[in-house]
């Protein structure tokens, strides 16, 4: 991938290993990815593909049995992986790179007031007084859409609904004006109407505060709605990366085809929904060739023998599949996603979460 001057975060050859009961599992396998400032990048993939682990390395929040065994993460002219102590990471966490987690019901401390949990960060990172922090916290609460913020400042999380708690989590994440906001499935635990509100809130705030958003999700509907770029992850690798239009309307990797084909919105009444057969490979063993080959109906012999390189499709679009090799036979993407553009337009026109509000 080309170097870009506007890159805010550059990951190079990242490899992450976990020790699980005396066995070593490779969760991220040699991933490189650049995040362009101000762009929304969505990382998609099924459970266990390494999406969360990948972003956790940006803030040094891997689980205790995990370890970055190779690679570099460049941020503001510094390789983050040189941070060793918690103190060094604390300069990044919250302050520069903030994270919003999946479950707002449990992300907040149940026995501390909402106000305390917001101002705590402001006091910590901006060195403000208690009164100043309170004023700023109330402003933030209003900004994320909490009515009567002043009264609700002293309330406890259990007095808030799920959607409101997620708004508070976002307010806390933004309290220090981070450069990057990682949203780790921020709407998975919320109901559909609230999902849409939260997504729009993050979108609006990104514009206002000028942070770069990284979405982790397996909801392609959300991706279509919010993302500028999409990275598709499979078995610890990025198998396809490109502009959102390129991924949706000109996907090249068989796994991306599978993902798109399994969009429930594309299902027709009476027919079974499409599902990718098989299961992802075990990450305990070394993977030979293309990790997706055993589940792919387009697999060639080379897919089982040698790992494919990143093929460049356009300046912004890359895919890691032998199908892009000039010697490969020409194959068409599955029929169900061939006119995805029209189908998506038809779907989004109906409104709902994926439509423009």
């Amino acid at each position: 991938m080309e170097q870009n001057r506007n890159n805010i975060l550059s990951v190079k050859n990242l490899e992450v290993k976990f020790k699980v009961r005396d066995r070593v599992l490779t969760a991220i396998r040699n991933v490189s990815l650049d995040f362009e400032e101000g762009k929304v990048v969505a990382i998609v993939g099924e459970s266990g593909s390494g999406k969360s682990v990948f972003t956790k390395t940006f803030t040094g929040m891997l689980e205790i049995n995990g370890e970055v065994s190779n690679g570099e993460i460049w941020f503001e002219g510094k390789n983050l992986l040189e941070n060793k102590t918690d103190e060094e990471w604390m300069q990044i966490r919250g302050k520069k790179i903030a994270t919003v987690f999946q479950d707002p019901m449990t992300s907040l401390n149940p026995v501390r007031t909402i106000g305390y949990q917001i101002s705590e960060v402001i006091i910590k990172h901006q060195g403000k007084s208690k009164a100043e922090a309170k004023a700023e916290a109330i402003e933030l609460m209003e900004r994320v859409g909490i009515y009567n913020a002043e009264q609700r400042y002293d309330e406890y999380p259990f007095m808030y609904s799920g959607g409101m708690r997620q708004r508070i989590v976002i307010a806390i994440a933004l309290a220090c004006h981070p450069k990057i906001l990682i949203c780790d499935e921020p709407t998975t635990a919320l109901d559909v109407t609230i999902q849409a509100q939260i997504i729009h809130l993050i979108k609006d705030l990104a514009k206002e505060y000028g942070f770069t958003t990284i979405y982790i999700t397996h909801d392609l509907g959300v991706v279509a709605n919010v993302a500028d770029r999409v990275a598709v992850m499979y078995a610890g690798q990025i198998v396809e990366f490109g502009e959102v239009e390129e991924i949706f309307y000109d996907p090249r990797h068989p796994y991306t085809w599978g993902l798109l084909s399994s969009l429930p919105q594309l299902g027709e009444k009476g027919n079974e929904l499409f599902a990718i057969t098989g299961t992802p490979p075990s990450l305990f063993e070394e993977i030979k060739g293309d990790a997706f080959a055993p589940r792919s109906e387009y697999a060639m012999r080379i897919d089982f023998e040698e790992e494919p390189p990143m093929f460049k499709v356009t300046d912004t679009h890359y895919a890691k599949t032998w199908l892009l090799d000039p010697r490969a036979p020409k194959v068409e993407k599955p029929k169900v996603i061939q006119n995805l553009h029209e189908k998506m337009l038809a779907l989004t026109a109906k409104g709902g979460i994926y439509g423009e509000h």
Partner: protein
Amino acid sequence: MKKYVLGRVIRAIIAVFVVTAIAIIMIFTMIPRENIFRDDTAQLQKLNGKPDDITIYKNNKWEQLGYLDFVRQAEMCQTESDDYDACMIVNEHTVVNDNGIETKEYTYSEEGEKVIEAYTQKGYKVQYFVYGGFYATKDYSGLEIVFNFFKNLIKIDTPSAVQDPDNPDLERKIYIGTDYNGVPAIMCSGCEHNYLLYFDGNFPFIHQNFISLNFGQSYPTYQNPSTLDVINSSQGSLDNREQTYPNGKTGNSADNFHTCTYKATASLDHMDANKFDDNYANCKSYYTYPSMVSMSYIFGIIALVLAYAIAIPAGVAMARNKGKWPDKIGIVYVNIMIALPSLAFIYFMKVLGFRIGLPDKFPILGFDNIMSYILPVIILALMSTASLMIWIRRYMVDQTNADYVKFARSKGLSQKEIFRKHILKNAIIPIVNGIPSSIILCISGSVITESVFAIPGMGKMLPDSIKAFNNNMVITLTFIFTALSIFSVLIGDLLMTVVDPRIQLDAKGGNE
């Protein structure tokens, strides 16, 4: 909230009464009543050879303790006969049997037989003394015993309480006066107690005599004072001090004038006249050493504070270093403490303490020497650290894995801040619930430690009373411990609402 607490209090009171009632019925109906005299050999030996006196003594005791109603001939004749003198006649006949041995036989007048018949009709069992005369007894049923117990349990002091035929002009009023120290107090003339409400330097500083609990007398151990007095009165020798008597004179006395109760005019003596100008001359005394309850409490509270002071930091350190050395050492310690029988641990510590010069029995150096307290307190504290440590560690570890901790980390808080500001407050919630119980139940003392060190505390009271068939004491202790347990649980729950905002005590909560 108020409604909820009221409901809980009412239920708690009912529970205490039910438990006490069960204890009373069990004790009075299932334990042979002869057993209570087993430890009263001194008195019974004195009466040896006088079978009628023994019968009277025993029946009097049983009546006092509430087993039965005991009436002697005189009383029977007074209530049932019109001709008292005729009724009281006992005719003695000497009978010589076939072997030439003389025995005496007794017959009673017609009036006497009439009274006997009347009492038999009323359900009494009439019996005859060996040396003439008759008496009647009637056993109370279990329910009657319970009813009588609770009827006499609560005593309310009123100005009409004193009935003294020698003092017809006794003023009857409640008034606000000042005590002999010049401190205001609510006083009474005509009540049992001179002071109904007063302040002094002893915990809890404000004392009342309006309502007192009466659990009956302690027997056969600690004879005659009421059971509450036994556990509450200070111990040791009289503590004489320079005092101003209620009549204004000064002198050296151990009397605690706040506790004075009415003394019948007939029994007032010149000693009393020297100190008092009224009839309130029956006073408790100051003693040099604290009561049994206080003894157990002193040990219990110090040990408790020490236990928490050790266990909380240790448990937190274990949780913070889970799987590392501090944790491993802590787990070894906890395992040893739990596996080791407490008696073995106490003796081990005793030997260890003896080596460095600490006394191995409390009375060796006694109340005044701090050395007497060190070893028992350390043992008591260490024995409760193990479970506290493991629970704190467990709650902390639980909380450490919670999502909000992950989020707090991602906010950029340091590990230390997260522990102090977030995890501890969550982990302490279940611990807080248990603190009132631990504090209040210190009163019950520690059976084993107090026995091993011969500490004059409450710990041995319950087992000793059971062994000695001191029934009233057993009931008193059952009542006290039950009441304290139930109310400390309630206080624990109330305290939870303070530390955990999610918990709201509400009468409508749950499935009700």
